[in-house]
């Protein structure tokens, strides 16, 4: 159980700051029955969320309609909280904050594909439509990832959060489809 001191010290400081700021959601017990699925899910969700935040922030600033900007800003804000919550979990579980390099990312395309897509979105002339379609696809992937956690995870907090991910992303997609047809 070697701990690379500087990284962990920094992380601990960050975590203490987060805990102290009251930014945390539901408090959870320090240790529960955590399995490899919980760890993998959380490690994969952190970068996936960050990508979602990047997309959502584009929508929050570039969206043509107030409805799109409002939804996008709320998605960015809630997912930022969730990233911090996941980092707290990984820390509490004494796990690396990222999956070991070489671990297979569930998403098929290499990350560059997604970066290209986000760059293309920034240049889009049909921004709202392209933004909504990209975020729908992104959240649809999140629903799939959360589904595995619900089925195979052990940690009660992570599993119940995964349930909420499925629920809230489905509801977000319904809102976005309604905006697309509006």
């Amino acid at each position: 159980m070697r701990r690379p001191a500087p990284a962990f010290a920094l992380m601990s400081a960050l975590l203490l700051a987060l805990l102290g700021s009251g930014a945390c959601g539901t408090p959870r017990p320090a240790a529960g029955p955590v399995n490899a699925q919980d760890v993998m899910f959380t490690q994969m969700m952190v970068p996936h969320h960050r990508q979602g935040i990047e997309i959502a922030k584009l929508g929050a600033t570039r969206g043509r309609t107030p409805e799109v900007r409002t939804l996008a800003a709320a998605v960015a804000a809630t997912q930022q909280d969730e990233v911090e919550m996941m980092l707290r979990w990984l820390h509490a579980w004494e796990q690396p904050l990222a999956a070991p390099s070489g671990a297979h990312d569930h998403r098929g395309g290499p990350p560059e594909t997604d970066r290209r897509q986000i760059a293309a979105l920034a240049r889009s002339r049909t921004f709202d439509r392209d933004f909504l379609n990209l975020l729908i696809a992104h959240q649809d992937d999140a629903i799939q990832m959360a589904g595995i956690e619900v089925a195979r995870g052990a940690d009660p907090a992570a599993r119940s959060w995964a349930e909420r991910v499925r629920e809230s992303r489905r509801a977000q997609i319904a809102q976005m489809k309604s905006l697309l047809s509006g």
Partner: protein
Amino acid sequence: MRKSTIAAASAVTGALVLLPASAAHAHGTLSNPLSRVYVCKNEGPETPKSAACKAAVAAGGTQALYDWNEVSLLEAGGRHRQLIPDGKLCSAGREKYRGLDLPRADWPATKVRPGSFTVTYHATAPHANSNFEFFITREGWNPAMPLKWSDLVPVKTFNGQNPTTFTNWTINLPQRSGRHILYSIWQRVVGSNEAFYTCSDVDFGGGGGATPAPEPTPTRTPTPTTTPTPPKTPTPTAQPGGTWKAGTAYRSGDKVTYGGQSYQCLQGHTALAGWEPPNVPALWKRI
């Protein structure tokens, strides 16, 4: 520097379920006859040429085509008919891939004949211990109608397969005329519940008058913008001090009660299931 995830988790819990196999996900689609997603991906996500692929992109965006090898459900576990509703077979019921469900009679189709036919599966990430099932639509199926499970007739199943990047099987196509869909399900069996779904449009020729449409009424021309949609975004109806309710548009400063507690809205949004005030501290502050 990095410790093994598995070992570390064991140290924490002492009772760990090993799930290494599910960490690596398979990917793929049918390449002969070309699946819809493969056809449109080959045309180019940004430059679709056929009217059908243009409509698919207009309806669902381009990301579905960049992720052409992931028309899958990660936790299918053989429950295909429970998880995928009628009309959504080509998208596996996933919103991301909804453009593939458009019922149209002009999807680019592979010409086929009844009899022996070699199918090819392109697995960019093949996995052993897999079952592959192939179906064809029933005679008389109308390509302009949504594809239903009851439209599918089993053709052949290959169990316990160990696919490679390109895997061929020979199947026997039954007598059909006109346009049909060859549908496939790739179900992983060991280490994962993941399943992949493909729709390949095929044309047996001799369509003409030989394909009696089940309904005499003129077929509805589907347009990409008429996909079923949920109710419109509701108009703001926030009542100060009211009970939190999904569908309500809240503004910063609005106050609600939820679960006997009072909350103040920190950031405007339309409430939705999963965004209950105690669950989203970015949006609500307990007061």
